[in-house]
């Protein structure tokens, strides 16, 4: 068998990908108020518009604190997707308006990746967004995309935070306002900026017992009018405090103890210290983003045909430095958390192992590795969360780092004595939501994809055993194992 090159590598990706199933002038990801408004505006201007929202997400996903930090405090009602759908329509009358305006609406549909040609890839037939529902995944083409993906919860560890009943403010608000499906009764709210104040008032409105607010700084942080309402409602705020200890049972958290020894019984701790703009899709598509401390962290930096609106574009800028505030909380956390406090819940990485850059429990720790630490790693260069994640496994689990990536970045900044902004953002990767293999799979892939598929490059000379070169076996090898890059 001679190697006569044909000018074509039949195992290359060229021309093997499927075309998107549908194409729209505008795709809007996220059907919150700003996403709905963008969709209606697009439809009004005559564009074909697809509006998708991942909610209602499955109970299994909620159990993994995805997309928000639900902390296991949703009622059984969240297992019933029909009732959840109904609840979404009830709570968002504008969805009907969007449909009347000609917007195509898909709920329970996740956008898990946006792909386009650019540095490192030229093989996509066109720019596409990957969508998935409970049954399958598919690709949709677009001219313009609006990311209205909102903001997600920031979690910060305290002793015993890794148990049911510890949750985020956005999750609590969603369970209360949208679904009426919150299972807690008595909550403690961490924070005293607007998010915390609003969340506490909302909880009160829903008849919950708000046991206290806890503020790490010495003074209240939020809007004066909101604070007045908190005072009027008789809710105490504990200043200069964080959670030093907690107790829990089978159902999760039962009480907390503040640094000053105050004991507060509660079944829920709502972490309302901050929200993180949901830029997973922007980052996974290598879109530009920039750190903006008064808008809640990294936000999309903007580019033609990719717009971000609502909280995804950044929290409302009131001049409040969210990053500095969060750093104060993390500093307090580093003071109170014992070395064995779990920081990454999925991978059970402790604070000591994170800062010690130690491998997971299932690996041996010879003396040499015990002598290594963040300190020794910093001798080689600035802290990089992606490198540290690979070594410690923090952020490598099924929640895709939602519960720990932000606090780990802050811990690395503090431990390496560098400003937060010098710590690179740990990468987000598609699928930006956990997606079962059987859902992600392209079951009806083009025949061209299968024809080009080789386990590796399909270079006939690459895998011929060295002993067989120039023997009768060489041809047999090539004929048996190669797809036919050469004739």
């Amino acid at each position, binding site marked *: 068998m001679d190697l006569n090159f044909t000018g074509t590598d039949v195992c290359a990706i060229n021309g093997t990908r499927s075309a998107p199933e549908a194409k729209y002038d505008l795709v809007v990801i996220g059907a919150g108020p700003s996403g709905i408004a963008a969709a209606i505006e697009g439809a009004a201007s005559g564009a074909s518009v697809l509006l998708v929202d991942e909610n209602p997400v499955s109970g299994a996903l909620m159990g993994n604190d995805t997309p928000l930090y639900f902390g296991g405090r949703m009622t059984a009602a969240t297992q019933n997707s029909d009732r959840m759908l109904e609840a979404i329509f009830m709570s968002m009358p504008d969805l009907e308006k969007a449909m009347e305006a000609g917007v195509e609406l898909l709920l329970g549909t996740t956008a898990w990746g946006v792909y386009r040609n650019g540095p490192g890839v030229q093989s996509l037939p066109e720019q596409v967004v990957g969508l998935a529902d409970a049954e399958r995944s598919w690709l949709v083409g677009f001219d313009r995309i609006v990311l209205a993906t909102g903001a997600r919860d920031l979690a910060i560890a305290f002793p015993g935070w890794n148990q049911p009943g510890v949750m985020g403010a956005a999750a609590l608000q969603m369970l209360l306002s949208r679904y009426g499906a919150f299972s807690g009764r008595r909550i403690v709210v961490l924070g005293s900026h607007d998010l915390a104040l609003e969340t506490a008032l909302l909880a009160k409105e829903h008849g919950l017992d708000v046991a206290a607010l806890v503020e790490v700084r010495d003074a209240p942080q939020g809007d004066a009018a909101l604070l007045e309402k908190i005072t009027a409602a008789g809710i105490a705020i504990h200043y200069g405090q964080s959670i030093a200890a907690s107790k829990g049972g089978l159902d999760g958290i039962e009480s907390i103890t503040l640094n000053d020894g105050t004991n507060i019984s509660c079944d829920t701790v709502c972490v309302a210290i901050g929200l993180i703009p949901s830029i997973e899709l922007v980052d996974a598509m290598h879109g530009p983003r920039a750190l903006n401390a008064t808008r809640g962290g990294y936000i999309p930096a903007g580019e033609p045909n990719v717009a971000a609106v609502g909280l995804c574009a950044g929290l409302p800028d009131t001049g409040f430095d969210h990053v500095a505030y969060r750093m104060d909380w993390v500093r307090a956390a580093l003071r109170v958390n014992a070395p064995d406090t779990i920081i990454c819940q999925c991978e059970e990485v402790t604070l000591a192992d994170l800062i010690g850059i130690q491998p997971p429990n299932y690996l041996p720790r010879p003396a040499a590795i015990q002598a290594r630490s963040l300190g020794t790693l910093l001798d080689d260069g600035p802290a990089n969360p992606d490198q540290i994640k690979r070594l410690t496994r923090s952020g490598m689990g099924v929640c895709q780092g939602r519960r720990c990536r932000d606090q780990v970045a802050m811990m690395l900044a503090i431990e390496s004595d560098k400003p937060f902004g010098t710590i690179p953002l740990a990468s987000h990767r598609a699928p930006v939501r956990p997606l079962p293999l059987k859902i992600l799979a392209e079951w009806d892939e083009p025949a061209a994809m299968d024809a080009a598929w*080789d386990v590796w490059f399909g270079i006939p000379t690459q*895998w011929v055993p060295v002993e067989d070169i120039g023997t009768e076996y060489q041809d047999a090898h090539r004929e048996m194992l190669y797809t036919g*890059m050469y004739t």
Partner: protein
Amino acid sequence: MSGSEVVIVGGGVTGLSAGWWLARSGVKVTVLDKFIVGWEASGRNGGGASHYSSPLFDEEQRLWPQMDELLGYPTEHQKGRILIAMTERQWDQYRFIAERHTRLNHPVEVLDVKQVQEAVPLAGDNCFGGVHYKFGGHANPQRTVQAYAWALQDLGGKIIQHSPVTGFETAGGKVTGVKTANATYGCDAVVVAAGPQIPQLMAQLGVDVPLAAARAEMIITEPAPMMPLGGVDGHKIYGRQTLRGNLAYGGGPHEWLDVDATGPAARPSTPLARNLAKRLAELLPKAAHLNVIRSWAGVIENSPDGRPIIDRLTSPDNVVVASMSSVGFGLSPASGHAIRDLVIDGTCSFTNIDLLKLSRFDGLEKDWREKRGWMPIA
């Protein structure tokens, strides 16, 4: 050469392993990397270590089981692999490979469906059978990279990150210094193990190294219950179950790229994740419900025949060039040894690596990439 200085360009597994081997021989080693060790292909690959096609195979097999101990850091190396056939054609192919191994005295066993399911509980009864290699294996690429780096430092070697090499100083037919933006590192010998950037660097020394770069992708799932054997290939995908339980898999069409001297601008993954997911769900049907939690891509170079280039130049005569041609992770314990030998003794002590000489491409057509269709998409 004890006490002399060797500068290594590139902190991937090839450069790091070479540095570690040299440091073990008492050589002063400095490894320069443009970013962080293992950031390119060496930290993004499948972790497979069963390269029976290579002259370095015996040394690869001899070394891997000892690497944790030799390095002093865990690599997560696990021995053995199983190939599962999902089509009649694959079944023929895998049994053909099994015969070939038997002929060369590599221990293999052909498995029926029931035996496959015993060894690989996530497999279904939809397969034709399997082949168990009782050699080869896999390791964790990222942990292995760091193990080499740390072991090298423990022996007194230096690693300087965030320092792209921009050129060389030469005198009297030798490279005497390696230049970065901020410094020049004097040296007695140089190893160029810069992956896809080798051609640009070597061109500065007037040496043509024919390589083409391409992008390849992988996906990973949430953890599955641990299987008795984690190195499961077949159905034209490769991968492993990590010691945490995740299933990490790659394979399928690659995309040829042009990569400039500063390295890849991005390493995007694409919807190919869906085609990988399909094949993995077919190969391991009892894992089909598992969540995929990440995908990624890496950029790797290939030589015209797909085999590594490990060679010491004649001019300048103190330069060793090492491109592993897309099969370099598994071979790294052995490639480092070979590079050490070339640097110190001028010849490989443990096997004949003439097959890997650069001179095999003397007289290669100028349009070798076009002929093979290894061109980037215009």
